[in-house]
């Protein structure tokens, strides 16, 4: 008999509901029927593995992807990817994307009347090291207006995408900046009931990773689902 340890389910309130009325885009897209609980099988405890050949080593510095330097405030964004037991998640892919310093995405559907920056694409990738650490150099993204409601503005944020060890650990999230006055008014940030869980999306200013005369450091640790205890029965 082959028994497998699955991954833990989220603690109540720490993950967003699919439908959150103040976030207008969720109204016609959130499922209305209850989700069907799926026990984890081999299909969910495995997942894609990305090696060094999937990632350009230069892709972790978003300020060096063009001939010139992008406009804006250079920053270092770094942290660790851990599981819920505090164990590092090594050699896992981290993808990020963001707006430029003026709050404009390099995307044909971004209609915000702010300048594009020919020296900034806003896309980065890296693998965590053997201790789960990652590090990006980028510029601080600008805030920008959106059409969710009257006078709606998104706080500065960087999108993060992570795989972790399994299909069950896939996570896409957003990192925010400390002290940003727009955060409490952001319907996307506010989708999650648990205040502490929401606030963990706000990075911390970090002297240790700040580079003198170069770039301020922000620290953002990311936690992926942990493993359930191994079943007593051992695989044969």
């Amino acid at each position, binding site marked *: 008999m*082959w028994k*497998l340890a*699955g991954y*833990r389910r*989220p603690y109540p309130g720490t*993950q*967003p*509901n699919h439908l*959150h009325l103040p*976030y207008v*885009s*969720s109204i*016609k*897209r*959130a*499922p*209305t*029927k209850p*989700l*069907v*609980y*799926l026990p*984890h*099988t*081999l*299909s*969910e405890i*495995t*997942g*894609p*593995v*990305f090696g060094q050949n999937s990632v350009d080593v230069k892709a972790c510095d978003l300020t060096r992807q063009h001939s010139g330097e992008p406009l804006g405030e250079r920053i270092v964004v770094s942290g660790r990817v851990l599981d*819920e*037991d*505090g164990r590092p998640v090594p050699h896992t892919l981290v*993808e*990020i*994307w963001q*707006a430029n310093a003026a709050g404009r*995405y390099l*995307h044909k559907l971004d209609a915000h009347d702010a300048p594009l920056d020919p020296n900034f694409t806003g*896309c*980065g*990738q890296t693998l965590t090291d053997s201790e789960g650490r990652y590090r990006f150099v980028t510029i601080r993204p600008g805030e920008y207006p959106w059409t969710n409601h009257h006078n709606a503005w998104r706080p500065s944020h960087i*999108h993060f*995408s992570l795989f972790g060890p*399994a299909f*069950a*650990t896939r996570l*896409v999230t*957003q990192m925010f900046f400390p002290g940003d006055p727009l955060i409490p008014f952001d319907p*996307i*940030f506010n989708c*999650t009931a648990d205040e502490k*869980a929401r606030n963990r*999306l706000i990075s911390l200013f970090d002297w240790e990773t700040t580079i003198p005369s170069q770039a301020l450091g922000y620290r953002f640790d*990311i*936690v992926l689902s*942990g493993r359930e205890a191994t079943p007593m029965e051992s*695989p044969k």
Partner: protein
Amino acid sequence: MSLRATTSQTVGPFFSIGLSSLKQDNLVGEGVSGERVTIAGRVLDGDGKPVPDALIETWQANAHGKYDHPEDTQSKKLEAGFKGFGRILTDGNGTFRFTTVKPGQVPGPDNNMQAPHIAVSVFARGLERRLVTRIYFPDEPSNSSDFALNLVESTRRETLIAKKSTGESGVLEWNVILQGPGETVFFDCGL
């Protein structure tokens, strides 16, 4: 030490900037065995309108029923040309299309074999968390005993089973209906 998993947030409308470089709509490399299948469909919202800014990710075993992952310890063959991961962005009409091989059977609970299936994540603006679903195959006798299909009420089960395209031979059609009549079955898979 006990931490809580980081809160999920939407991919938003501009994820193609960050997620296009690993786009993979042809999963079949050189020398890969198994039956080729092209799966095509649309992502539709609660008004039946196409979702032009959705991302579909797929994960599956190879034709032998083996995942390219260290925790798959079955003594089945891996194939260098098949990793099992797909990433497809919908176009302006909400359509997506990818080519793969029909996966072999993999073990499920109590060591019963699962019917051939592809695990799917759906991401989009408006979805604060991914939606997890599965694609099953038509005319597949093992579907009737598949544990996951049997978790689903029988009237909704067909949303998980691809259909032979009436227009194109060799193509299977499978749609993602986010809400409303014919709403696709989505699974609670944790995050």
